[in-house]
């Protein structure tokens, strides 16, 4: 029997009208107050927004808050997509369509008991979640979210302000550097837990990250040769100018980058570091409450940053055919570009989630074989081919690039077809199982 009061509250929360009214009632006074006080602080805000130093910083803060909120929504989306994939409804109890589920999840994390087991390495145990979260959250500083903007109140001769926090000469190398630091969180969590299962999780994560950084680097080098620049804003501008996204030139390089991103985010099918069936919870077995939530947050933030990187480098960033380009610096165009960028990122996140719930986890030797025997040779051949194309000045020629990709793909297929080893792969010291007539 349910308590009648609880039942009434639940019924209320499930009504979308109630939710909308509550949100309006909460925000209306704030908006009203802000509007009333505008003459006193409006000039200050306008000055901040027009400043070439403060605007990127404020925009970055905005993006950071958005990412933290998006993480909560991602968890709901993930559970909904899991439900969709497994032919069930997913969370639908808390709020209308389960929309308050992230809030409930967050509260659950906060109120859980925060346990530090007796025999852990205390300093490293506390440090590990921070080391996992921080690299995941500083990576997006170089993402060019929406080009440049010129506010209507800015003087005509003032330069437009950029929506990119840091325009670095080393460009996406910065993202690689930061991403490569992310592994320490996982490794140290596994080590500090003083637990065999956690330890195995940490070891697996290390081997996996080291292996998958190589094909990722090769794919990015292909792109670097094509674009001739490391700056993401320049790469986006090139794609916007020609209207030809680099994914059309280098689909294989993009696939390599996508696969490596899966491995770097530690998500299925690459989640051997936390394989529940074998390792209980892997590297985060001993973690509870907010410390566990930080690992969770890091995974989703990694996913968002990785998606944003792929969108910027291979999918034209904020560019979409028929929409205003970089020359239009009005704030409407800026918002449109931001919407395009975010829309593409959301599509990528959906892809990440669908794949997570579709493809089963790899076995460890399969994982290593894909990286070292599949992706690495393919990446090297692709890189050599791109170098040859670049030497002949054909690196932006879509037909030459596609021919190269088709040739590499055909070569891989022929090699796999002719090799005597079964594709699924087994330990080399086990007798081979033949698949069909080989």
């Amino acid at each position: 029997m349910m308590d009648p009061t609880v039942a009434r509250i639940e019924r209320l929360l499930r009504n979308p009208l109630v939710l909308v009214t509550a949100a309006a009632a909460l925000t209306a006074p704030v908006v009203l107050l802000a509007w009333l006080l505008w003459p006193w602080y409006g000039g200050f805000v306008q000055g901040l927004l027009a400043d070439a130093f403060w605007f990127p910083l404020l925009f970055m803060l905005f993006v950071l808050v958005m990412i933290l909120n998006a993480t909560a929504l991602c968890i709901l989306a993930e559970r909904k997509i899991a439900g969709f994939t497994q032919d069930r409804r997913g969370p639908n109890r808390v709020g209308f369509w389960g929309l308050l589920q992230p809030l409930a999840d967050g509260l659950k994390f906060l109120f859980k008991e925060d346990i530090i087991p007796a025999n852990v390495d205390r300093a490293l145990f506390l440090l590990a979640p921070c080391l996992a979260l921080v690299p995941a959250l500083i990576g997006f500083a170089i993402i060019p979210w929406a080009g440049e903007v010129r506010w209507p109140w800015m003087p005509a001769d003032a330069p437009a302000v950029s929506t990119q926090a840091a325009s670095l000469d080393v460009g996406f190398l910065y993202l690689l550097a930061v991403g490569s630091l992310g592994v320490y969180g996982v490794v140290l969590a596994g080590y500090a837990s003083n637990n065999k299962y956690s330890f195995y999780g940490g070891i697996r994560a290390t081997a996996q990250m080291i292996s998958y950084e190589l094909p990722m680097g090769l794919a990015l080098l292909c792109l670097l040769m094509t674009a001739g620049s490391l700056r993401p804003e320049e790469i986006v501008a090139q794609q916007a100018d020609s209207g030809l996204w680099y994914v059309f030139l280098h689909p294989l390089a993009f696939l390599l980058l996508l696969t490596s991103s899966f491995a770097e985010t530690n998500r299925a099918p690459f989640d051997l570091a936390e394989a529940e069936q074998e390792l209980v919870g892997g590297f985060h077995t001993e973690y509870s409450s907010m410390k566990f939530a930080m690992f969770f947050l890091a995974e989703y933030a990694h996913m968002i940053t990785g998606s944003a990187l792929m969108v910027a480098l291979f999918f034209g960033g904020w560019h979409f055919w028929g929409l205003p380009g970089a020359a239009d610096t009005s704030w409407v165009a800026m918002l449109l570009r931001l919407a395009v960028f975010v829309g593409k990122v959301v599509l990528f996140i959906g892809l990440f989630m669908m794949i997570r719930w579709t493809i089963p986890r790899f076995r460890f030797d399969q994982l290593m074989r894909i990286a070292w025997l599949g992706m690495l040779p393919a990446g090297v051949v692709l890189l050599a081919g791109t170098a040859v194309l670049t030497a002949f000045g054909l690196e932006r020629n879509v037909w030459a690039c596609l021919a190269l990709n088709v040739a590499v793909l055909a070569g891989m297929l022929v090699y796999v077809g002719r090799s005597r080893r079964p594709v699924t792969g087994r330990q080399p010291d086990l007798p081979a199982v033949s698949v069909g007539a080989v």
Partner: protein
Amino acid sequence: MENLLIALLVLGALGLFLALPGGRAHLARFAPVPLAGAGGVLAAVVLRAALSEPQRAWFAGLALVALAAAVRVVTHRRPVYSALYFVLLILAVTGLLVLLEAKFLAAALVIVYAGAILVTYVFVIMLAQQATAASYDVRAREPFWGCLAGFLLLAIVGMQLLSGGAATAAGPAAVGTVAEVGTRLLTHYAVAVQVGGLLLLAAMVGAIAIARRKPAADGDGGESAA
């Protein structure tokens, strides 16, 4: 200035010698005294420079972090912590490189050292760790000669820097860009790059040759032919 440098180096050498792990537990207690003295003097010097020129404050902070981390790398008794202090050291040095506008070098340092080499170190350390600390972890092999050699080298370098006047390394900002570094590597240093590549290739072939030697327990070790 020279006297200050010598005093600093002597203090540092003494402190490091005392702090190095070894059988001198009754002396190791006093290690923080000379180390803190050296660190304090150094901090005073760089902070005084930072006061006159605020840009130097970053240099002061990063340099002190790097030095403290470096001391901990060699004195900590647990190899995992040593490796982590090495990561901290790398990050601090990266900051110094960024201050010098050598951003490509900074990114490369983090990717190669912190991202690849030290992860491998941590990996190996974790795999090789014993239940009880190994003897090579609890005592330094040659603390005295090691300290002497290291600080003599520091003294020579420091004296050269002082006698040669303030070497102004502040070149044009374009020096550290990726394009500039790449052009230099492929034109001015082309031979060195080729030799380095050859060396790495040889090392890789050697590593594979060692790794391929299978234990004879399986009976036939000839599985390797693909």
